C-alpha cells in the first residue's frame, strides 16, 4: 500500500471510529484529534521523502486494478502541487479541531436548538479530510470524480446540521450548485472515457496515460468546459459564486475554514490537474475569456466585501476575490504566475483559516456576526484584537507574509503575458487594504462601549493554537524556498504539458534581434 493511501485511510478510519463507536463528546474530540495528527505525521514523512528534483512528474505512484472492464483503476500519486495542498489540509485539520473544540455547543447556544451530535461533527470533519486527500492524490480521473462528488455529503451535513442561521437553505444551495457542477463534469468524464476507448483500444482513465492522448480541438472545447465549469463553481468564480457567502455565513467557524480553505481548493486544483494537461489547446484558446472572468472575480469580490455588514459573509466575498487571483495565475501560462497561484492556494488556505478562526473567537463571545454590533473591542481584549489584525494583514497580502510572495508572483506573471491586465489587477491591493482595515476599524477600534465591554480576551488554548498559523505565514513570507522548491518543478511540468513558455525580457529580445 502506498504511503499516500495510508495517509487518506487514517482519517477515514478515524471518521468511522468516531462516528460509529459509542463515546462521550470529549472522548470523540480527543480521538478525532489523534487521527488528524496521525494523518499530519504521515504527510510530514511524505514531505521529507518527496524528491522535488526527480524527473518523474508523479511520485509515490500506486496503480491497482479496480474495474478493469471499464478502464478504471485505483491509482494514486502526487506532484508538488498536490503535495502543497496535502500540507495545507493535514496541517489545518488538527488546528481546526482544537480551535473548534466547542463549535457545536456554541452553535446550539446561538440557535437555541440542538444540533447534531458532537461526535458526528468531528467524524464528518475527518471524513471530509479523507476525501480531500483522496482528490489530491488521485491519478485516475474516475477516482477523482468519485471523491469530488462524495465529498458533498459530509459538507452538506456539516452546514445543514451543525451551522447557524439559515443553515438548511445554505446547505441545500451548496448541494445544488455542487451537484450541478458534478453533473456537467460527469458528462465530460463520459466523453473522455469514450475518447480513450479509441485511443487505447479499450477504456483507460489513468491520468499519466491520458496526458499522451491527442484530442481533437472540438472535443477539447467541449470537455474542457465541462470540467472547467465544475471547478469554477467549486472555486468559486463570478458569476457562479453565490453559494459561498451563504455557506460561509451559516457554517460554524471550523466548517467555514475547511470549506473555504480546503474544499474550494479542489476547484483550482482540478483546473491545474485536469483542465490544463488534458485539454491544452482549449485551455490556451479560452484563456483570455477565463482571465477576464478571473479579473471580474477579483474586483467584484473585493468591492462587495467592502459593502458587507455580516462578517462571515464578508469572508466569503474576500475569498471570491482571492480565487480570482488564483485562477488568473493559472490561466496566464507563465511559470511565475502558475507557481504564484499554487503558492496562493496554500497562502489563501492559511489566511482564511486565521481570519475565520479569529472572527469565530470574537463571535462566540458576543453571539453576533454583524459588524455594527461591535466596536472598541481593543480596549477590553487587546490580544484578540492584535491577532485579528495580524490575520487581516495576511489577507491584505502585506509584504513579509506568505500571501505577498504568492500574490506578487501572480501579478508579475500576469504582467508578463498581459501587461494591462497585470497593471489593472494590481489596483486590487488597494481594495484589499480597504476591506480589511475598515473591518478592523469598525469592529476593534474606538472608545470602550457598553455593548462589547463584556468580551473576554483570548484564553491560552485559543491563543496558542493560532501560533503555528502565524508562524507559518510569516516564516514562509520571508523564506518561501521550502515550498517554492516543491512547487516550481511541478509547474514546469504543467507548462510543458500545455506547451507554454515565459516571454523573454524585452532587452534580451532587442539584443538578439540586433545580432540577426
Amino acid at each position, binding site marked *: 500500500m502506498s504511503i499516500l493511501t495510508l495517509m487518506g485511510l487514517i482519517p477515514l478510519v478515524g471518521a468511522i471510529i468516531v462516528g460509529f463507536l459509542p463515546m462521550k463528546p470529549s472522548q470523540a474530540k480527543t480521538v478525532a484529534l489523534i487521527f488528524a495528527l496521525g494523518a499530519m505525521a504521515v504527510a510530514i514523512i511524505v514531505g521529507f521523502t518527496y524528491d522535488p528534483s526527480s524527473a518523474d512528474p508523479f511520485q509515490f505512484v500506486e496503480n491497482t486494478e479496480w474495474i478493469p472492464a471499464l478502464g478504471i483503476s485505483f491509482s494514486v500519486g502526487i506532484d508538488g502541487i498536490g503535495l502543497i495542498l496535502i500540507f495545507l489540509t493535514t496541517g489545518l485539520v488538527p488546528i481546526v479541531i482544537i480551535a473548534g473544540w466547542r463549535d457545536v455547543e456554541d452553535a446550539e447556544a446561538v440557535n437555541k436548538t440542538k444540533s447534531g451530535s458532537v461526535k458526528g461533527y468531528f467524524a464528518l470533519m475527518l471524513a471530509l479530510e479523507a476525501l480531500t486527500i483522496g482528490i489530491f492524490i488521485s491519478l485516475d480521473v474516475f477516482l477523482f470524480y468519485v471523491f469530488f462528488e462524495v465529498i458533498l455529503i459530509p459538507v452538506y451535513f456539516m452546514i445543514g446540521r451543525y451551522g447557524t442561521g439559515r443553515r438548511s437553505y445554505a446547505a441545500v444551495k451548496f448541494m445544488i450548485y455542487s*451537484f450541478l457542477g458534478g*453533473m456537467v463534469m460527469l458528462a465530460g468524464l463520459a466523453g473522455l472515457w469514450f475518447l480513450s476507448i479509441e485511443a487505447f483500444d479499450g477504456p483507460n482513465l489513468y491520468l499519466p496515460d491520458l496526458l499522451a492522448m491527442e484530442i481533437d480541438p472540438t472535443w477539447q472545447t467541449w470537455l474542457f468546459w465541462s470540467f472547467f465549469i465544475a471547478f469554477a463553481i467549486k472555486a468559486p468564480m463570478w458569476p457562479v459564486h453565490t453559494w459561498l457567502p451563504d455557506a460561509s455565513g451559516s457554517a460554524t467557524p471550523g466548517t467555514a475554514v475547511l470549506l473555504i480553505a480546503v474544499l474550494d481548493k479542489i476547484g483550482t486544483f482540478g483546473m491545474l490537474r485536469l483542465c490544463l494537461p488534458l485539454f491544452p489547446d482549449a485551455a490556451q484558446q479560452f484563456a483570455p475569456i477565463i482571465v477576464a472572468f478571473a479579473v471580474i472575480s477579483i474586483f467584484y469580490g473585493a468591492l462587495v466585501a467592502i459593502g458587507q455588514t455580516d462578517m462571515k459573509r464578508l469572508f466569503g466575498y474576500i475569498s471570491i476575490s482571492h480565487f480570482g487571483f488564483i485562477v488568473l495565475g493559472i490561466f496566464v501560462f507563465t511559470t511565475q504566475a502558475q507557481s504564484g497561484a499554487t503558492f496562493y492556494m496554500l497562502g489563501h488556505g492559511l489566511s482564511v483559516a486565521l481570519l475565520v478562526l479569529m472572527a469565530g473567537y470574537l463571535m462566540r463571545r458576543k453571539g453576533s456576526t454583524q459588524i455594527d454590533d461591535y466596536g472598541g473591542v481593543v480596549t477590553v481584549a487587546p490580544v484578540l484584537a492584535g491577532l485579528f489584525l495580524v490575520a487581516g494583514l495576511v489577507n491584505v497580502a502585506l509584504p513579509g507574509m506568505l500571501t505577498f510572495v504568492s500574490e506578487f508572483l501572480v501579478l508579475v506573471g500576469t504582467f*508578463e503575458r498581459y501587461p494591462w491586465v497585470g497593471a489593472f489587477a494590481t489596483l486590487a491591493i488597494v481594495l484589499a487594504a480597504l476591506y480589511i*482595515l475598515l473591518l478592523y476599524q469598525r469592529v476593534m477600534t474606538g472608545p470602550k462601549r457598553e455593548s462589547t465591554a463584556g468580551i473576554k480576551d483570548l484564553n491560552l488554548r485559543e491563543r496558542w493554537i493560532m501560533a503555528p498559523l502565524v508562524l507559518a505565514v510569516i516564516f514562509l513570507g520571508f523564506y518561501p524556498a521550502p515550498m517554492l522548491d516543491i512547487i516550481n518543478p511541478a509547474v514546469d511540468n504543467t507548462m510543458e504539458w500545455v506547451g507554454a513558455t515565459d516571454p523573454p*525580457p524585452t*532587452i534580451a529580445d532587442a539584443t538578439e534581434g540586433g545580432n540577426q
Partner: protein
Amino acid sequence: MSTALMSLATSGDIPSDTVEPILTQITASDAGGIFEFMWLLLALPAFGAAVLFVAGRRSNAWGHLLGVLMAVIPAGLAIWLLVALMGRPEESRTITQHFWDWTFVGTFNAEFAIRLDPLSIVFVLLITIVGGLIHIYSVGYMAEDPGRRLFFAMLNLFLAAMLLLVLADNYLLLYLGWEGVGLASYLLVGFWQYKDVAAVAAKKAFVMNRIGDVGLSIAIMLMFVTFGSVTFGDVFAAAPEADSTTMTLIGLALLLAATGKSAQYPLQAWLLDAMEGPTPVSALIHAATMVTAGVYLIVRSNAIFDQAPVALNVVLAVGLVTMIAGAWIGCAQDELKKALAGSTMSQIGYMFVAAGLGPAGYVFAIFHLVMHGMFKADLFLGSGSVMHAMNEERNMRFYGALRGVMIVTWITFICGFLGISGLPPFDSAFSKDDIIAAATSQNWFAGAVTIFAAGLTATYMTRMMAMTFFGKARWHDDAHPHESPQTMLWPMIILSFGAIFGGLFAVGVIGDLNILEWLKPVTGYEEAALEVPHWSLEVITFVVVIIGIVLTWMQFGMRDVPQAAPQHVTVLTKAGREELYTNTWHEELLMRPGQHLTRWLVWFDNKGIDGAVRGIASGIMGIGTGLTRTQTGYSRRYALVMVGGFLLLVAVFFLAWWF
C-alpha cells in the same frame, strides 16, 4: 552589442558614458571586518520588536530599555561602518551581503540581500542616530502610558523595516521594507486605538500609501519584463539599453510610489491626519525618515530617471506644487503639529524639486533630506515637549509666552528654526541654497518658486515661534506648563546641535567629510552652469527670508493672538485651513462614488445574480418557492431531478460519439 551588455550585466558596472566612476560590488565576506556584521543592523531592531510583541505584559518593566538598546547599538554600528567605508577606495565602497533566495520562480529571482554603499550609509546613519535619540526621548514622553512597551515594539519594528528599505539590494526587497514602514506607521498613528480619529487617520494613511504601492508594484513588474531582473546592479547596468517609453513608464510608476509615501500632492492628505499619533512618531516617521523614503527611491533609481526626462519633469512639477501647497497649509494651521506637517510636505517638495533636476540635483536632494531629518526632528520633539507641558493641547492659540517656563525647549526650538529657515550658516543655508542654484540654472521659473518657498518657510516658522513662545500667555486655566524631563531634553539638545552645525559639517567646514564628493559615485553629479553669480541668489534668498520673518513678526509677534481663530480671513487662509480642499475632492470624486458602487454591487449580487440563480433553480425544479422554504426534505427531490438530467446529458454525449 550583446557581448557588451553581457559584460555589463555580469560585472554590474555603470556604463562609462555617464559621469559615474566605475563601481564594483564587493561581498561582505570579501570586505571582511565590520562589514560581515552588517546584518545586525536589521536583526537587532527586528529581534527587539519580536521579543516585545510576544513577551506581553511580562516585559513591561524593562521593555523600553530593550527597545532603546536595539536602536542605540545599530547607531554605533552605523558609525563604525561609516568609518570603515571611508577607509576604502572610492570605487569599492559598495558592499553586498547575501542571505538567502527569497522569491524565485523561473528567471525571476529576488534575493534576500543587502547593499551598503555611500548612499545607503547616509540613510542608515540618519535613521539609527535620529531614531536612537527619539527612542530615548520616548522613554520620558510615554512614561505615563500603559502601552509603552508596545510602543517600543512598534518603534523597533519601524527601525528594522526602514533599515531594510534603504539597505535592500533589489526592488522587491525594498518593497518589503517600504510596506514594513507603512505597517509601523499604521500601528503607531493608530497607537491610541480607543480614539476614533486616530484609528481613522491610521487607516487613511495606509490606504493612501497603498495607492502608491500600486505604482511600486507596476514599476517592479515593468523592470522584470524589460530587464529580466529586479536587482539594482542589473537594472542600473541595463537601463541605458531600454527604450525611453518604458523608462518613462517605470519612472512615473516609481514617482507614484514616492508621491504616496512622501506625502506629495495629490496624495498628501494623510500626513496631516497622521499627526494623531504620539509626537515621537511624528518626529521619527512623519518627518525625519519614512516620509523621505520617496526621495530615496527616486535618487536610488537615478539610472532609470536619467533615461526618462519626461518623468523627471513630472517629479519637478510635483515637487514645486507640493513645496508651495505644504508651506501654504503650514502658514494657516493653528495646531502646532499640523503646521509642522505642512512644513514637512513643503521641505520634501524641495527634495523632489532637487531630484527632478536630474544629475544636477540628486545629491542636493539627499543633502537637504539629511539636514531636514535633523532640524525637523528637533522641531517635532520640541512641539512634543510643549504639548507635554500643556496637557496635550495642540492648538497654538492656547499657547504663548512659553519661553519663560520652558527655556531649554525654547532654545532648541530656536535652533530648529535657524536650521530650517535658511539663514547662514545653518543647515538649510547650504542645502536649500544648493537646490535654489541648481533649479535656477535649469529653469528660471523653478528657481523663482524655490526662492519664494524659502520666504514662506520663514513665514510659517516665525508664526509658530511667535504664537508658541512669545506674546501673552493664552493658556487654559488648568495648564501649568513646566520643562520636560531630562530624557526628553537631551535628545532635543543633541538634535539642535545637528540643526546648527549639520550644514557646516556636511560641506566640510567642520571635519573632512564632503557630502557631494561622498555621494557622487552613486548618484552622479553634473554641475549646472549658472548664468548669474552664485552669491546673488544667496543674497536674494536671504532678503526674501528676512522679509518673511519681519512681516510675520509684525502680524503675530507684535499683536495679540486671539484664542478663537478669526472667521473673517482671506480666501488664502481659508483654503490653507482646509488643507487646500484636497479631502473634499477626494471624498467627492473617489470615496462617495466608491460607496455608491459597493452598495449597488451588494444589491446587484443579492437581487441580480443570486436572484437569477434562485429563479432558474425554481424554474427548473418546478417547485416554485422551494428553495426559499428551507425544509431539507426537498433536497431528495432535487437530487432525483438532477440524476435524471445527468442521464440525459450522458445520453447526448454517447450519441454524439456514436455518430
